[in-house]
């Protein structure tokens, strides 16, 4: 079973209010920095995917029955603003990349999480069950 493909890491950008109070000039500067950062990672082949998330959405939970409320709200240090899916050699490398997130200067944070790989046990089990199905079919 090949383990040659590089591992994946997700960067979760947290904080939806760090840009409040930035002047138009500052916003333009951050846009330029962010775009250059994204572009560089893409060219290096390290960025597999990335998207922003809108802040108006819903929160579903169990509270005397299924509850659905509006959220998260605009003023939140926890709300996830967007994500990156990186493909790099190690957690350390992913963390180094996260350090360059321009919004860190303004109080945003980045969560770096390895994407759990499928373990080889699962792969063997799947292979076995596929072989069994094939055997039964030919009977």
């Amino acid at each position: 079973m090949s383990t040659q493909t590089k591992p994946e890491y997700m960067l979760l950008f947290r904080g939806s209010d760090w840009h409040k109070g930035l002047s138009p000039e500052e916003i333009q500067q951050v846009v330029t920095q962010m775009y250059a950062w994204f572009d560089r990672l893409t060219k290096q082949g390290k960025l597999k995917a990335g998207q922003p998330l809108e802040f108006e959405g819903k929160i579903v939970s169990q509270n005397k029955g299924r509850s659905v409320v509006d959220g998260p709200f605009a003023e939140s240090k926890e709300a996830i603003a967007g994500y990156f899916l990186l493909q790099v050699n190690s957690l350390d490398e992913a963390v180094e990349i996260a350090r360059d997130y321009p919004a860190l200067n303004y109080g945003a944070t980045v969560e770096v999480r390895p994407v759990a790989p499928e373990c080889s046990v699962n792969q063997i089990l799947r292979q076995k069950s596929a072989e069994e199905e094939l055997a039964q079919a030919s009977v």
Partner: protein
Amino acid sequence: MTNSDPASGAQPPEEINHVVEHLFRHEAGKMVSTLTRIFGVEHLKLAEDVVQEALVRALQTWPYYGIPRNPAAWITQVSKNLALDVIRREKVFRNKEVAISRFMEESSASSTAEDSVLFGEQISNDSLWMMFMCCHSLLPQEAQVALALKTLCGFSIAEIARAFLTSEAAIAKRLTRAKQKIRDAGIPFELPAGEELTRHLDGVLQTLYLLFNEGYKASGGKNLIREELCHEGIRLGSLLAQHSVGNRPRSHALLALMLLNGARLPSRVDTDGNILRLKEQDRPCWDQGMIARGLYHLMRSTEGDEISEYHLQAGIAACHCAAKDYESTDWPRILSLYDLLTEMDDSPVVALNRAVAVSNVHGPKAGIEAVEAIRNREQLNSYYLLYAVLGEFEALLSNRQAAINYFRKSLDLATIKSEKKFLSKRLRSIEYHGSTLHSY
């Protein structure tokens, strides 16, 4: 948020699209003007909030999806959509349906070239109206400049505070009071006409002049935000002079003055942040494009028969810009312009500047006599430049001790660090060399 993107797609990843410098600030200024017209003057803050929200959206999405081919159009479209949301949500806008639907029709993605010319005109009308509103005589002068910077030029309170070398709290208070006055006065959103227009136009020109001067004053070191003020003064002045309402000789004269002085900005300070006088400036660094534009507007300012102070000051600036080096400067011409200027404006500071011209034409002794003849001379008693000028004249006459005394007095009175540094250098060179190394 609408799905249609008038900017027709993002840049391919191979090219990084650079957003034009200060675009966000300028677009913010334009959109705040237009939205204030739609919402009404009493909802200026709401207009500012909507525009800010549009810029934040750009921040959220452009890095991921690429910078739009037409960033300005994107910002405009999103601002309009957000404004529409607000209008639908807030009861207070129920009676503005007509104005709003007209607004939404203007320059949609499928507009014709003619429509976007009309829309462009409307935008510049709105900016012009906002200029007249910010520069309204009801408001104290400092408030006018601060309000223009905030609403028209998209400066934040922090940036304005830095530009004026004052606190954010002071600027915030100034703005709050100004907005309150505007709300209470119920200023209508029409451009003034006839005699009222002339009066208001003078007010606008005065404010732009102050704004430019604020940026032009020596502040020591490279202070980019102050230079930004000069460029904003020029930008607004251009907007004004190009519009039929502002297209008057004196508008062109002020614009010429700002361009000709602005052209010299890069050369006024050396790499260590020290002030360089005209004589020491590296003339090839002067922005020839701005000088050319300045001379063009100076020419335009002669159409018609009005002569304003701006005409004369621009004429003097033109003499300097036209000289290929200090020695070639047409001082007799400059002196004759100062003669006219002192007739129009009896400010002792203008007369002091004239005395410098006198000295360049008739020698330092005549310069000293010109200073002594200044009317209201006592108003200059605490003005450090008076003593610096007298010091230079005495140095030219080789009256070493008199020169030293004057420069010491000047140094005592100077407050800005770069000026003090400059004066100390002059003083030292006279004390140790005792010669007229640099004439004024």
